[in-house]
């Protein structure tokens, strides 16, 4: 259920590493980048958290063995600089970079890697388990770790689980782990979390011992807004440097702002209309939905173009079929397999199935003579849910299907969805990079027959033919063949399942262009810049008006080794883009209003906030003055007393 919220939830190889300490020394004012978002963390503890915001924190704090390229998610070096396959693809030996250190100065060795993989497997850590379930890690020497899978695993050699510091985690027992606050700040990525004020913001500071590139930004502040409009306004005023997840209706106004760039990035997230398939007879769904013609009639009644124009405001794209991966190339061409808007066809299918409006009230009757009315559940936690419901119920009524709507929050909806106590709802998923997890959710295994072992299959649709294909792709080590199997699964799913994918949802993000540059989309061109799979953008950013070379001079002593690595290991992706970003810098900087990067955002809104301050002060003086006058008069009256 939670995985729906995963968003960027890719157990990703972060590009970076690092903790607090020096860099701020020389400067009076640390260079701070502030990012606004609409959601707080649930927990910064990797064994507990499950929301998008903490994945960004982990991506920045915990480097992974292998990382993912910014443009296409291909596997690139992370903590490991190289790896060797053996044993027919079952075993990989990874060699770590030289001189790796945790931000507190402790050496980062193969022991940390093996410890994390083995312990998370034994204790079934929530975010690690699907990757490490069949793995076993053995330390060969300080810089070499050997990982063996007990079954063929097409995901290898990608090893994108967050590596935690053994010296911090070893003393924490399994029982205490769940309540561990995880504010230790020990990091192997470019930043480390130092402070979290629940409901307000959290702060990450630069890790000076990080092996990758130093971007010149000393602190990242993530500020939680409860109101998207307020966040947009804060961005325009320069209170924040970037904003994540605002309303589509704000896009137009942001695009008109010359200092702001809007990105509607796709990373596989989609919104679907789910009908209750009642697999195995669970729940109390409307039996009419068992009839595939009725389902197709419902699909044909819905105009996804209108939803795209009116609800998504033309951002993202129209849904075609299940999108199993953050990488869009996994979706096959469906040909004519998509359900076009065709109310006539819809009516024809319903009549053919025996659903006819015999009493003329506009609502068809089922073959049993009952009015054909479906229950529609509206999510309370999405602002788009109500308009989507508005349209879908309207279209269904137009073809003679009645609807009853109820509102539920995500917790309630999750409960009724796995219990099969609904007829339809619209909700969304965000897939990982590897398609396996998303595909697994619609197998019979994931139907919740026992409430204590809830599965992910919220459509309660499953089919042995689909399960068969699923098992085939799971152990297929040939990437080309695997793609073919997955394509076949998706075509089958599209025709037979109870899901209609409505929209590919963009992550709406915007950033100011006057303070930082080098923003990076993942995947290239279509993806978002923040809260992405492996968060490569941070390492490619530069402060406008500063010389990147100067920053690297800052890093002295033990970090020289890390500097070397930057030159070699990073060449693949982030390094490249960062380089091009840098060259563009001087030109941009001329246009930028703030010559000195450190207080650029301050300049942008000084005029406004001063006016506000003045007005505020005047108001306070008036109020206090009035009160003082009142009190003074009273005192006067005391003097009056005879």
């Amino acid at each position, binding site marked *: 259920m939670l995985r729906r919220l995963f968003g960027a939830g890719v157990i990703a190889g972060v590009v970076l590493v690092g903790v607090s300490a020096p860099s701020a020394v020389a400067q009076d004012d640390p260079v701070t980048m502030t990012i606004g978002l609409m959601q707080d963390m649930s927990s910064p503890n990797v064994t507990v958290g499950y929301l998008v915001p903490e994945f960004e924190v982990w991506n920045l704090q915990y480097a992974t063995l292998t990382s993912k390229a910014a443009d296409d998610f291909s596997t690139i070096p992370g903590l490991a600089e190289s790896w060797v396959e053996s044993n027919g693809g079952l075993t990989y030996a990874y060699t770590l970079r030289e001189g790796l250190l945790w931000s507190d100065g402790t050496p980062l060795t193969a022991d940390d890697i093996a410890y994390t993989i083995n312990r998370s497997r034994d204790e079934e850590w929530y975010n690690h388990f699907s990757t490490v379930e069949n793995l076993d890690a053995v330390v060969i020497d300080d810089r070499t770790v050997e990982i063996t899978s007990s079954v063929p695993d097409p995901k290898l050699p990608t090893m994108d689980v967050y590596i935690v510091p053994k010296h911090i985690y070893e003393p924490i027992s399994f029982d205490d782990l769940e309540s561990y606050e995880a504010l230790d700040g020990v990091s192997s990525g470019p930043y480390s979390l130092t402070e979290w004020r629940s409901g307000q913001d959290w702060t990450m500071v630069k890790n000076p011992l990080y092996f990758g590139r130093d971007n010149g930004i000393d602190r990242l502040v993530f500020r939680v807004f409860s109101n*998207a409009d307020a966040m947009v306004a804060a961005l325009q005023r320069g209170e924040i440097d970037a904003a994540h997840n605002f*309303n589509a*209706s704000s896009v137009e*106004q942001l695009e008109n702002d010359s200092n702001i760039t809007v990105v509607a990035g796709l990373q596989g997230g989609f919104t679907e209309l789910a009908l209750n398939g009642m697999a195995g007879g669970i729940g109390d769904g409307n039996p009419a939905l068992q009839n595939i013609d009725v389902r197709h009639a419902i699909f044909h009644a819905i105009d996804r173009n209108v939803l795209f124009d*009116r609800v998504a405001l033309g951002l993202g794209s129209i849904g075609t079929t299940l999108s199993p991966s953050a990488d869009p190339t996994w979706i096959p061409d469906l040909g004519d397999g998509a359900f076009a808007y065709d109310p006539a066809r819809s009516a024809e299918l319903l009549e053919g199935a025996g659903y006819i409006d015999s009493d003329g009230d506009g609502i068809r009757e089922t073959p049993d003579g009952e009015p054909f009315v479906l229950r529609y559940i509206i999510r*309370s936690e999405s602002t788009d849910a109500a308009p989507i419901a*508005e349209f879908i119920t*309207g279209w269904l009524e137009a073809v003679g299907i009645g609807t009853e709507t109820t509102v539920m929050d995500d917790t309630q909806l999750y409960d009724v969805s796995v219990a099969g106590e609904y007829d339809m709802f619209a909700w969304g998923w965000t897939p990982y990079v590897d398609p396996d997890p998303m595909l697994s959710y619609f197998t019979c295994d994931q139907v919740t027959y026992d409430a204590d072992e809830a599965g992910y299959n919220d459509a309660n649709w499953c089919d042995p033919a689909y399960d068969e294909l699923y098992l085939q792709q799971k152990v297929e080590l040939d990437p080309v063949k695997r793609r073919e199997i997955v394509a076949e699964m998706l075509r089958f799913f599209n025709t037979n399942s109870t899901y209609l994918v409505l929209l590919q949802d963009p992550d709406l993000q915007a950033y100011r262009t006057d303070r930082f540059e080098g923003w990076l989309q993942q995947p290239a061109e279509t993806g978002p810049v923040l809260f992405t799979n492996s968060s490569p953008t941070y390492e490619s950013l530069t402060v406008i008006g500063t010389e990147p070379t100067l920053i690297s001079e800052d890093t002295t002593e033990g970090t020289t080794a890390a500097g070397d690595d930057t030159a070699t290991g990073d060449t693949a992706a982030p390094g490249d883009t960062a380089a091009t970003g840098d060259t563009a810098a001087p030109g941009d900087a001329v246009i930028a209003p703030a010559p000195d990067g450190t207080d650029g955002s301050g300049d942008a809104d000084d005029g406004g906030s001063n006016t506000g301050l003045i007005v505020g002060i005047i108001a306070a003086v008036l109020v206090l003055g009035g009160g003082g006058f009142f009190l003074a008069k009273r005192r006067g009256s005391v003097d009056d007393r005879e």
Partner: protein
Amino acid sequence: MSDVVKTQTTTFSPRSFRWQRRRAATVDFWSRFRGDRLALFGLAVLLTFIVMAIGAPWISPKEGLSAVDSIDNPTWATPRFDYPFGTDNLGRSVAAQFVWGSRVSLWVGLSATVLTIAIGSAVGVTAGFFGRWTDATLMRLTDWFLVIPFLPLAIVLASVLDRSLRNVVLVIAITSWPGTARLVRAQVLTVKQRLFVDRARALGASRFHVIRRHILPNVAPLILANVTLAVPISILTETTLAFLGLGDPKRPSWGKTLEEAFNAGAISRNAWWYYLPAGAGIVIVVLAFTLVGRAVEEILDPRLREGGL
């Protein structure tokens, strides 16, 4: 008709006497009420809104509320001839939402108030009349409910129950009856002191009879005054609940319009036509009820007859 009345008057039955007295009281009430120009103005405003609420289907076709039927409309249109209050993010007419919203807001305001007053009066009369441990128990309960923070409790209840108008009415009544109960009990206690109650009891009248014939008629004016003053609170509560997303998703109340406007980003694009009418509607109706309510209270509540506002 007038004949009948006349004959009955001559026989002077207690029943006709009662009727006559009531009619006289009504005439008296109206002549006093008419003297208050502000209250008259408030009443006129209220009547206008009530006519609008009842006549909504003729004033503004229901299709105007439907996103599917508004597909061809422009979105975020500023007010103009065919859309007097502009359109929203889905192209729906804001004016249609305003007209239909008045229905829900007035209906919830009135029915929640009636339920509130009914519960409060029942508790207040029972406690005041029976006294002793009944009184002690009920008043303790009332005090307890008075202490529980009103809005948080309403929000918790509303989020637990299904989102429907009936439940919104229920939530408002459950959270706001204690005030009325206290007020009514105090009035019952003073009425009970009066001679005629003792006399009726001495003559062997049943408790029920005494409550119905002697207590209720004397407490009724106060209850009525309380009704007019409680409606604004009910309307404001409904609005707040709807704004927090706890209203009925299918009924376009003013609070829901404000919620949708806020969520759709009307503030940041400064689409004033979207969020101003619904808010203004609430202010006007609440103000009108307050004006009428104050006048009614002044006329009916003996304590306010002299002095007054």
